[in-house]
C-alpha cells in the first residue's frame, strides 16, 4: 500500500515539475521522426547531394524504420531518461523533503522502490507514446508493423530502465544530481562502446535493442531471451547497490 502511495506521489511530481510532459514530447517526436526519417532519408540526400549521391542509399524498407526507432530510443531516449532520473533522490535530500518522508512509517526500501516504480511508469508512458506514434507512421509510410514490434518496444523499455536505475543508484550513492547525471552519461558511453564488441555486445542495453530489431526482421525470438535477462540483471544489481547504500545513510 505504501508503495502505491509513493508511486502516485512520484507520478504527480513528475507531471507537475514538467519532467513527464517533457519526456512524452521527446518520445512522441522519436516515434514520429524515426519512420519518417527512414522513409525520406534518400529524398533528403537527393535534395542535398543530387541523384548520384542519393543512389548510394538503397530503397528504404520497414526494417529501416525499426532500426531508426531503436537507435533513437537507445541514444536520445536514454539521454532524456538520465536527465529525469539524475535528481531523483539527491533533490529530496537537498530540499529537505527526505526527512519528512522517512520520519513516517516508510521503509527505505519502499522509498527507493517508489522512486524506481515512478521512473519506470514514466518511461513506460513515454515508450507507449513513442510506440503508438511509430506504429501509426510506420503503417502510413511503409506497412503496418507485425506483432514482433511489441517485442522491440519492450526491449527498448528495458534498455531505458537500465539507465534510469544506474542513474538513480548514482543519485543515492553520490548524493549529487550532477554526479548522478555524469554517471548515467558515462554508462551510456561505456555501454555504447561495449555494444560494438562481438559476443558480449548483445548483452548491453543498446545490443539488446539491436537484437530485438533482428528478431522483428525475422530472427528467432529465443536469441533475445538472454539479452533481456541481462537487462533485468543490470536493473537488479543497480537497485541492490542503491538500497545497500541508502540503508546506511543518515538524513
Amino acid at each position, binding site marked *: 500500500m505504501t508503495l502505491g502511495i509513493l508511486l502516485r506521489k512520484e507520478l504527480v511530481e513528475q507531471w507537475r515539475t514538467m519532467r513527464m510532459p517533457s519526456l512524452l514530447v521527446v518520445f512522441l517526436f522519436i516515434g514520429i521522426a524515426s519512420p519518417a526519417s527512414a522513409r525520406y532519408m534518400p529524398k533528403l540526400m537527393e535534395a542535398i547531394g543530387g541523384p548520384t549521391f542519393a543512389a548510394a542509399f538503397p530503397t528504404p524498407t520497414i526494417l529501416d524504420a525499426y532500426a531508426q526507432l531503436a537507435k533513437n530510443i537507445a541514444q536520445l531516449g536514454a539521454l532524456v531518461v538520465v536527465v529525469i532520473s539524475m535528481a531523483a533522490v539527491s533533490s529530496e535530500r537537498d530540499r529537505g523533503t527526505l526527512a519528512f518522508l522517512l520520519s513516517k*512509517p516508510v521503509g527505505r526500501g519502499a522509498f527507493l522502490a517508489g522512486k524506481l516504480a515512478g521512473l519506470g511508469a514514466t518511461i513506460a508512458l513515454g515508450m507507449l507514446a513513442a510506440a503508438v506514434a511509430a506504429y501509426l507512421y510506420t503503417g502510413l509510410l511503409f506497412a503496418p508493423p507485425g506483432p514482433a514490434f511489441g517485442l522491440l518496444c519492450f526491449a527498448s523499455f528495458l534498455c531505458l530502465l537500465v539507465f534510469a536505475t544506474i542513474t538513480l543508484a548514482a543519485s543515492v550513492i553520490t548524493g549529487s544530481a550532477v554526479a548522478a547525471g555524469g554517471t548515467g552519461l558515462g554508462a551510456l558511453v561505456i555501454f555504447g562502446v561495449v555494444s560494438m564488441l562481438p559476443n558480449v555486445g548483445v548483452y548491453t542495453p543498446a545490443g539488446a535493442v539491436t537484437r530485438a530489431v533482428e528478431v522483428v526482421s525475422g530472427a528467432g525470438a529465443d536469441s533475445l531471451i538472454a539479452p533481456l535477462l541481462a537487462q533485468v540483471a543490470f536493473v537488479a544489481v543497480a537497485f541492490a547497490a542503491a538500497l545497500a547504500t541508502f540503508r546506511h545513510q543518515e538524513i
Partner: protein
Amino acid sequence: MTAPPPAIECRALAKSYGEVRALRGLDLSVPAGSIFGLLGPNGAGKTTLLRLLTGLRRATAGTARIEGEPVGPETARSIGYLDQDPRFYPWMTGLELLRLSGSLCGLRGSALRAGVDHAIDIAGLAEFVRRRIAGYSGGMRQRLGIAQSIVHDPRILLLDEPVSSLDPEGRHDVLEVLARLRGTSTVVVSTHILGDVERVCDRVAILDHGALIVESEKEALLERYATPVYEVEFAGADAAAADRVTELIRARPWATSVTRAGSLLRIATSGTDGAGVELFALLANAQYPVERFERSRPSLEDVFLRLLARPGSASGS
C-alpha cells in the same frame, strides 16, 4: 502487573560525527503523557537526539526505545515529527501534503478526512491549505509542519523548535495546542524559548555538549534551584550611573547572574544569607533612584543560566 514502559527511553545513547561527539552516553526517560521540554544551547545535541528517535540518524552506541520498542520503521507509526526547518514539496498544496502524510501513516477514507480536517483546524491552516506550498511563508510552513505531525493523532510528538518562525499569535496558538495534548500524547519540545517551556512543559531536560545536565519535573527543578532572584527597576535616566550600580552589584560574590534590560535589573543570587540586605544597602549607598525593588520567583531561564554557567550569564544585556 508491570508498569507500562516510558514513552521514550535512552540508555547510554551516543552519537559522533567524526571527531565531534554530539551525544555522550545519554540516559533519559520521558514518561508517557508528559510535555517534555528539551533545553540547551546551540550544539547541545537536541536535534541529534530527536533525529535519532525518528530513525533518520543512527546511534554510534547505546539504545533508544519508543514505548519499549527499539527505534525503527514500526515505531515511526507512534511518532509525529516536526523538523527544525520543515521543508515540503513546493508543487503540492498544503491539503495534498496532509493527505499524503496521513496516508503514509496508514489512514484511509473517513479516518483520513477526519485526521486532515482536525490537523487543519488545530494548526489554523484553513485559509491557505489549498494553496501551493511554494507560496508559503516561513510561519505558514511551520503551521503546516505541525499539522502534518499530528494528522495521524500520534501518541508521541517530537517537535524541534516548533515556534521558532511563528509570529506571537501563532506561537500562542501552538502553545495552546501543546497544552491541550497534555495527558493524551507525550510531547517532546526542543526550544530556545525558555518562557514557552516554562508555560507548557511539566518536565524539563537540559543538555549541554551532548550530555544531560539535569532532568526533572519543572516545578521540582525550580524548587531545587530556587535561590533568591531580585528585580530592581531604576527610576533615573542617567545610564552611566545605572551602569556603575550594575557593575557594583556584579562584583559581589553572591551575584551569580546579573542581567539588565533597559531600566530593569535582574539579579540571581547564590542563596547566601544576607544577600538581599546587602543588595538593598548597596543600592541605598549608591544613591541612585530606584522605582521598584522586589524579590521574585526564579524563572527557568535563571536555572538554565545557572546550570550551564555560561560566561555570558553574568553579563548585562
